[in-house]
Every structure is written in structure tokens, then in C-alpha cells.
């Protein structure tokens, strides 16, 4: 598995997809920072409850949000959790949730730095 700290965040790519609109990028980063904790908490709760169907849906939703910013480790882990959950591999899915949380926290941290720094 790739280094979870290597977020693969591609804000330049996102900026290109939104016609270089810096204001919109700032807004998107803000929305992502607001919603990421909720998304990852939902994944954690579903895994804790052993609710595989909900875990698959929550991992999917997290993957969808992440896909706008990165296809790095966080996105790959969310995808792996979703796929494992959908094929009924509860142990395999739940086992990757902690690693996913770490990867998502790294994305959050990098987005926060960007927003607090010159990038925003």
C-alpha cells in the first residue's frame, strides 16, 4: 500500500477543471474540509457496527468526494473498503478503515494548510 501521508492531492488539476476559478477552488476546499469529518465518521461508525451495507455506501460517498481532489491513497483505500464491503468481505473491509482514516486525515491536514496559507 502507498504511503498514507502522500496524499496525491491535485489542486492544480481541480483548478484546471473549474476554468482556473480560484474563488471556486477556495469554496470547494472549504466544503471538503467541512464535510470530510462527517464522511469519515460515517465510515468509522458503520465499520464499528459491522454494518457492511452501510459501510459500502459510506465508503462510496467518501470516495466520491475525494475523487474531486485526489486519486491517491485516501481515494484508493476508500475504494478498497467499498469493494470489500460490497463483496461481503467484512473483515477485509473493516481492517482497512483505520488506514483510510489516517489517509483522510492527511488530506484534511494538507487542505487546511492550503487554505490557511498562500494557496487560499
Amino acid at each position, binding site marked *: 500500500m502507498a504511503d498514507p501521508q502522500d496524499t496525491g492531492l491535485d489542486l492544480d488539476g481541480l483548478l484546471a*477543471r*473549474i*476554468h482556473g476559478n480560484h474563488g*471556486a477552488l477556495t469554496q*470547494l476546499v472549504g*466544503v471538503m474540509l467541512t464535510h470530510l469529518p462527517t464522511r469519515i465518521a460515517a465510515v468509522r461508525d458503520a465499520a464499528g457496527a459491522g454494518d457492511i451495507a452501510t459501510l459500502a455506501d459510506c465508503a462510496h460517498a467518501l470516495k*466520491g468526494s475525494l*475523487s*474531486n*481532489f485526489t486519486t491517491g491513497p485516501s481515494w484508493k483505500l476508500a475504494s478498497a473498503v467499498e469493494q470489500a464491503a460490497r463483496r461481503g468481505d467484512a473483515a477485509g473491509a473493516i481492517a482497512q478503515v483505520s488506514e483510510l482514516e489516517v489517509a483522510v486525515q492527511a488530506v484534511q491536514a494538507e487542505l487546511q494548510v492550503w487554505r490557511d496559507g498562500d494557496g487560499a
Partner: protein
Amino acid sequence: MRAVVVDADPVARVLLHEALGRAGHAFETFADGEEALARFAREPLPALAILDWRADGVDGVDLARRLRSLGPRAPYVLLTAAPGEREAARTALTVGADDLIEKPLRLDELELRLRIGMRTQAARMEVLRLRAELIGRSRVDLLTGLADRRAITERLQDELARGKRMAAPIGLLLIDVDQFRAFNDVFGHEAGDAVLTTIAARLRRVLRRYDSFGRWGVEEFLAVLPGCKIDQLGALSERLLAAIRSDSVVTSQGRVAVTCSIGAFGLPCDAPEDIPDVDVIAAVLERAANEAARAGGDRVRLLKMDARSDTPDDAVDATDGPDAP
């Protein structure tokens, strides 16, 4: 144009907000598909619906299918889906979605697809408008397939003009379904429609090919009978009444017996200057049909123009009076 976005992902909603705003469209966003469907049920349909394959509450296939079931005015459906969902999203295309765009969204591609969607939807609405216009111009009563009121009125005017020119008689029958409004109230419009279509078909079979026949009112039919002499109208009317009552009518509420009342009016056309206009003729026919209905229905009331008068009030009751055939 008005658009609706259904996507559980707040980031995607911001991107769609940006694209729709740039294109100048008014729009609403929903995270939940069920909420969007509830809104569609209450308010006019939007022109465009941008749906995520996995919106909360209802999946993309079901949402697309339900939107398409809303009829020809259903919105143009642009589905968004992650690359891994492509196969499933294709299913949505087969059941009602119009286009598919992959996530993550790119504004340039999104704007292009929106433009295509809006153009397609505008073309669809134009087709619907033209269809409605064609139906209006076709002058066919959609329920019975007969000439509608405007068309049968025009044929009446044509026959009156021809009768005057040729000094040929014209027979006119206004056929009114007995107790139709009460029937509709009790058995419903669907059963009422079955009665009207059945009666129309039975009457058409008795009338001659060159007679004009159309729907005059909700439960009224007008027959224009060129060359039909006044003394033939009574017998023809009796044949029509017999055809109507010959069998019960099959409706969604079961078989029902139906009768009609006929107002008959003959124009000899031997004194063209005495021929009244369409409004006067219509009033005389309706008066005659009403009298037949008030007398118990399933009968004909025959009136004819008094040759010595040119006013409808002087029409002679030919059924009961001395001029009866």
C-alpha cells in the same frame, strides 16, 4: 431553463452550482432523490435533472425510470457516475436517463453536456408544442375520431351554401345522449367515454358515406345529411335510435343500456333566401333535442322550417303537428 441537481456529494453540488450558474440557469439542489421526486410531484417539472448514480434515498436507475414515467414533459436526465459505476449507469440510460457523465466532474465537459441537454430538451418541447398545434388543426375529436365541432360546423356551412346553390334539401340531426351527465357522475369519465365512442361508431354505421357527422358538444353529435328530404328524417332517426339501443355498451363499470334523443330539422332549400344561418339552425336543433329528452328520451322531435317564415321561432313541430311525415 430550470434545472434540478440531485447529488449527495456537497463538492459535486458546488461544481454543478458553478456550471449551472455560469450557464444562467435557475436551479435547486437536493442530496436526496426522494425529496426531489416529492418536489417534482408538487411543482412544474424542471427542464433538466442532473442526478448522481448514487443519490441518497433512491438509486439512479429507479430515479431515472420514475422521472421518465412522468410523461413526455419529463426533464432531460443527465446522470453522473464514477468510472467504476459505468456499467450500472448504462442500465439507467436504458430505462430513462438521456446522458451520462463521469466523475470527477470537469466544468468544460459539464457545460458542453448541459448545452446539449438544454438544446435536446428545447427540441422535445418544440415537438410537443407542434404536436398540440397539429391536433388543434386536424379538427378531429380525439375521443371518437369524428370531426370536431369546428370541422362539422364548417361542413354544415359548406352544405348550406351548396344547398342554396343547388336548391337541394338538407337534413340535420342533433343526437343527444340521454342522461349522460348523470351517467358520468355515477360511473365516471372512463365509462362515459366508452359510451360516447360506442354510440359514435353505431351512428356512423347507419349514416351514409357522404353524410357529415361530428361531435357537437360533450354528449351531442351532429349529422348533416345532404339531399335528405324532410319526410325521410323521421324514419332515418328511428333507425339511428334503434341502432343505439340495439345492444348495451361495454364500459369499465360493466354493460349499460343507452338511449339518445334526436332533434331533427329539415331545410327544403327551395327558397334559398329563407335558409337561416348556422347559429339559428343550432338553436332550433338543440331545442328539438331538448324537447325529445324532456319527453322521456329515446325518441325524435322533428321540426321543419315554415316556408312562410324565416325565423326559427316559427319552426313547426313536425312530429306531433299537422306537418308530421
